[in-house]
């Protein structure tokens, strides 16, 4: 397929360079190895937050580096986790002495590489706590899989834990809040079309013109099952019901509703999904206190979306509302 690139092997490098130029006031881009840090890092006495993963999910993670969110992002090759030789210097660069939290999506590669980097950082005297994000309710049987994946909830963990770090929480508290977000968020996604990894050249999977894939991950890896195409309301019900079941959402619960685009679906369609999801939540007696709609955790040009529901409490709401200033998310500043 046609792609707006120069060379499949330099996609990440050139994209990160452009990101650094576009947001020079917010971030510093380090090369060889590649990682992105908040301009002011390390921020005095603040716990540092580092996340990362394969590229192709933009704006995740570099787009969330800045005040009130991440201190560093470590991009791997497209859909490939970054390596310890990137994660370690990023961790050291954002350590003010208060320790560093690694926010890791639960994929085998990400877990193994961050685990290795955390061991190396500890050996250099930096305290590291890892928050594993595994909000994908599509993966049912953890015993026979690598476990639930980290998907849309990752943004919510990064925002809320980032706000906790910004207000001065210590390492244990920041990690604890990240884990609390993860425990209270569920996500399920759908693909209407596949995506094409630049160096692979052909789509990551074959999906018929009249088929959709329910329970898709964010790497174009196939999901739970494949069904004939349905309308937006029907698809929304299929995604939201398992999420509400998993979270055991009760009448009166306050929630944040997040409809995330996979990169190839227009915002207008995401709002059609949001509309039905909000109706379903209202029917259940849940109160949608906060919302987010947009392309934030993408899978290249895949068409589709994911729906995340986060059960809020007063503290989580306050931290969600706290000022944030990053390339992709900004309010209160």
């Amino acid at each position: 397929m046609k792609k707006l690139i120069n060379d499949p092997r330099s996609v990440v490098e050139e994209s990160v360079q452009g990101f650094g130029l576009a947001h020079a006031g917010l971030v510093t881009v380090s090369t060889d190895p590649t990682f992105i840090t908040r301009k002011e890092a390390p921020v005095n006495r603040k716990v540092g937050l580092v996340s990362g993963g394969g590229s192709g999910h933009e704006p995740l993670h570099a787009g969330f580096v800045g005040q009130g969110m991440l201190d560093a992002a470590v991009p791997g090759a497209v859909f490939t986790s970054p390596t310890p030789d990137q994660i370690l210097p990023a961790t050291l660069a954002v350590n003010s002495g208060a320790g560093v939290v690694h926010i890791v999506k639960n994929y085998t590669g990400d877990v193994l590489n961050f685990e290795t980097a955390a061991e190396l950082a500890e050996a250099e005297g930096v305290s590291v706590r890892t928050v594993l994000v595994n909000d994908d309710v599509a993966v049912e049987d953890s015993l026979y899989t690598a476990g639930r994946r980290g998907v849309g909830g990752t943004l919510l963990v990064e925002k809320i834990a980032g706000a906790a770090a910004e207000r001065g929480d210590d390492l244990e508290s920041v990690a604890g809040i990240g884990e609390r977000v993860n425990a209270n968020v569920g996500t399920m996604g759908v693909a209407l079309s596949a995506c094409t990894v630049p160096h692979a050249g052909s789509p990551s999977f074959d999906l018929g013109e009249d088929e959709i894939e329910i329970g898709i991950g964010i790497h174009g890896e196939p999901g739970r099952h494949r069904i004939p195409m349905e309308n937006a309301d029907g698809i929304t019900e299929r995604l939201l019901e398992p999420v509400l079941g998993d979270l055991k959402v009760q009448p009166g619960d306050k929630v944040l509703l997040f409809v995330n685009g996979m990169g190839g679906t227009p915002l207008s369609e995401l709002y059609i999904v949001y509309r039905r999801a909000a109706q379903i939540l209202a029917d259940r007696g849940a109160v949608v206190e906060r919302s987010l709609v947009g392309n934030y955790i993408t899978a290249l040009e895949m068409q589709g979306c994911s729906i995340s529901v986060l059960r809020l409490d007063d503290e989580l709401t306050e931290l969600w509302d706290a000022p944030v200033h990053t390339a992709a998310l900004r309010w209160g500043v």
Partner: protein
Amino acid sequence: MVLDVVWAVKWLTLCAQAMAEHRVELIELDRAIGDSDHGENMDRGFQAVLDKLAEAAPETPGAALKLTAMTLMSKVGGAAGPLYGTAFLRAAAALGDSAEIEPAAWAGALAAARDGIVARGKAEPGDKTMVDAWTPAAEAARAAAENGGPDVLTVLVAAAEAAEAGAVATDPLMARKGRASYLGERSIGHRDPGAASTALILRAAVGAAA
């Protein structure tokens, strides 16, 4: 034939050649049940190994394997980087400073590599991962070393053939670890890319001794 550092460097060079030649095939295997990156990552990783070997000129097989381990760990990414990195690191540790590898030592290095992969990735035989190639390879090498006397080529061939058979035997399995596990029954009928690249690596070890 002795397995010295010249053999080790030739082995790693042939590994790099094999990854370049089979890059698209590994991408296709991964495309079916994963995320299309295995061939690209292994090719990039072993090209980096060649660069490092040219710079460092290691003096023992163990040193060459240790250099390979560190390079793969820092260049490959994904699950394969830490897993192959651990495999080569454990194999290097098992070989120590020896200038030449005896048949039993090769079998021991393969067993150490396998144990390292299992410790790191927590997969067991039958989970449809690279463990399904490493386990029969290590066992075949041990049996060949016990029965075959001093002929090291026999041991290398036994390990390579067992790894190849092990990779083929992943076809009917349902994945229980790694990214393919999300597919459940739909992973059946596809070869595990990590088992396939393991077979290429152990076949290259034979080529280097031939």
